[in-house]
């Protein structure tokens, strides 16, 4: 199966007056796992936020094709409904709604159908177990008072529950201890096994140890400078990014 799920064509992106992405192109096939690596400030997070249509990021030219449709002009919620999900580096606390009921209403928004509370609870329970999370998590207000690790787990919990076609993970492993990295890694593997497509944005390689990777891209100065397979991750691990930056 080699259907193209995401096609990014020559995008130029500004944040305020500053040009961050300078002609970036990228193509991801359905079911693949891609990794974007690169030094700080290269534009990795900008890519994630641009794909999710964050209004702070101004796409000046280029196009984004997702699942056969041109979504370049679609707003965030339309893209989410089409099946893209960005997990956040620092998820925002939203008091007044619990994680559980938020996920439920988000699923209902995306599918346009009501889900039976029984089915929902059952799938919630198995997902919580997989992520080593206590059930009481889902009764807490969304990201309110969550520790850094709890927030990241809650993002992966949402990922598994919402089950998008494409997940963009923005620095999911930053700030996690060894055990949490393992748990989050298990969650990501489960998503992959469901047939999910992954774009993992990271500057460290801890999360990748337990993960199959199809392609690795090095992002530097607003462009993809090198694309390779899994071995590129190891190369970065030994030599750093220096050799990729001209």
């Amino acid at each position, binding site marked *: 199966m080699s259907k193209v799920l995401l096609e990014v064509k020559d995008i130029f992106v500004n944040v*305020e007056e500053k040009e961050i992405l300078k002609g970036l192109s990228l193509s991801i096939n359905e079911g693949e796992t891609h990794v974007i690596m690169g030094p700080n400030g290269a534009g990795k997070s900008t890519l994630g936020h641009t794909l*999710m249509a*964050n*209004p*702070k990021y101004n796409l000046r030219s280029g196009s984004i094709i997702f699942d056969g449709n041109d979504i370049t002009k679609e*707003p*965030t*919620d339309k893209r*989410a*409904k089409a099946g893209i*999900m*960005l997990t*956040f580096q620092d*998820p*925002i606390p*939203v*008091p*007044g*709604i619990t994680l559980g009921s*938020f996920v439920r*209403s*988000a699923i209902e*928004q*995306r599918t346009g159908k009501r889900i039976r509370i029984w089915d929902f609870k059952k799938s919630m329970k198995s997902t919580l177990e997989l992520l080593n999370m206590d059930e009481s998590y889902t009764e807490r*207000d969304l990201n309110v008072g969550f520790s850094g690790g709890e927030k990241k787990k809650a993002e992966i919990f*949402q990922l598994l529950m*919402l089950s998008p076609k494409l997940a963009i993970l923005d620095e999911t492993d930053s700030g996690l201890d060894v055990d949490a990295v393992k748990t989050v890694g298990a969650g990501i593997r489960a998503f992959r096994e469901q047939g999910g497509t992954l774009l993992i944005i990271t500057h460290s390689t801890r999360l990748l140890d337990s993960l199959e990777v199809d392609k690795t891209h090095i992002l530097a100065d607003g462009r993809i400078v090198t694309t390779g397979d899994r071995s590129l991750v190891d190369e970065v691990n030994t030599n750093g990014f220096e050799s990729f930056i001209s």
Partner: protein
Amino acid sequence: MKEKTFVDDIDESIYDFRYDEDENDMLDRGITPAIINEIADEKHDPDWMRAFRLHSLELYYKQKMPVWGPSIEGLDMDQIVTYIRPKARMRNDWGDVPDDIKNTFEKLGIPQAERESLAGVGAQYDSEIVYHNLKESVAKQGVIYTDLETAMQDEFYNKMIQEHFMKLVPPTDHKFAALHGAVWSGGSFVYVPKGVHVDIPLQSYFRLNAEGAGQFEHTLIIVEDDAYLHFIEGCSAPKYYAASLHAGCVELFVGKRATLRYSTIENWSKNMYNLNTKRALVDEGGKIEWVSGSFGSHVSYLYPTSVLNGEGARSEFTGITFSGAGQDLDTGAKVIHNAPSTSSYMNTRSISKGGGGNTFRSEVRVTPKAKGSKSSVSCASLMLDSESRSDTIPAMDIRTKDADIGHEAKIGRISDDAVFYLMSRGLSEEEAKALIVSGFADNVSKELPMEYAIEMNNLIRLEMTGSIG
């Protein structure tokens, strides 16, 4: 980056009212003692009440319009007068009720009969029976729950009313208190005897369709020592009256070690000048808990006041105000610490959008007697766009060194990051904002009984998105 944003209101064409004025009413502008006598006759007032009304009218003539708050220049007193006369046809045709209000009823799922009643058109509806049953059931505990007119026909309660009526909010207080004293009509009278704990909340809502209730209504509640009552006033459906002035009055007397919880959700139609006065007097060890949600109205002046008059008396105020286009809502609370070891706590939220204005006004007064008292005021405002306005005016007058006073104010705009975050999970922009606003209002919703909390959240959703999800 200083781009102006603007969150549009759901329906801009709000309330273009026209009145067919009766010729008789046209002849006689201005409130005269004759009109007041007519009202007193109509209501079979005891003599003292008739005299009280006439005296209040004198004070009304003498006093000036308030000039310190939002403008009330648009308030047409002549027009009000035509609706003050008894038997004046306050009622409208259902056809005259603005579509906006009808739509809101529709969206809130209110039955037709009840809608008509709320819009001032209707006849009786089922809640009359609920009211009756409730009244019977609390009567077994010795609790009186009725309207003032009825209560005054009883000699015992007539005396009690005479001792308390407009003693906390005297007609000398301000022009609209004087007007109220002269023309008041309808409202609630609740008397809870010593030591009685009323388990079910009493709700004025059930009595809304009582004749003339809701515009110059008077609420008088007496909770005796060691007793408990939760009283709920109003409902989330917009109330529509032909005359655009609401000058109600609420007087609450809380006995020793007694607790009164007074919850309100007000949602006035957007032509309304809501100039309401609410006050509570709390005795030794007693407690008043205010929960207040202010929606709707064109202009509001509303500052429930607690007078902590006995040692260890307490006051808690939790409030929320939501203003949209064309609205200027001046709300807040006041506390007077007038005895040792009294404590007060205020926690408010205000939300403005579509160019609406909010002012939070608080006053904490601590007299020299109130040694060892504590007060904490916390207010937060959320503006949904850069056209909207939010002000905070806290006043403190502390006359003893031995008091612990705190104040905290936060004003902010809705966070773009939070909106983006929620949208990235598939919520539309409106839904995301509504969710954030509901969360912001959580301090109030969690203080309300379940069904009211749901209604209030629906109301917020309605104000934010034009629909209930």
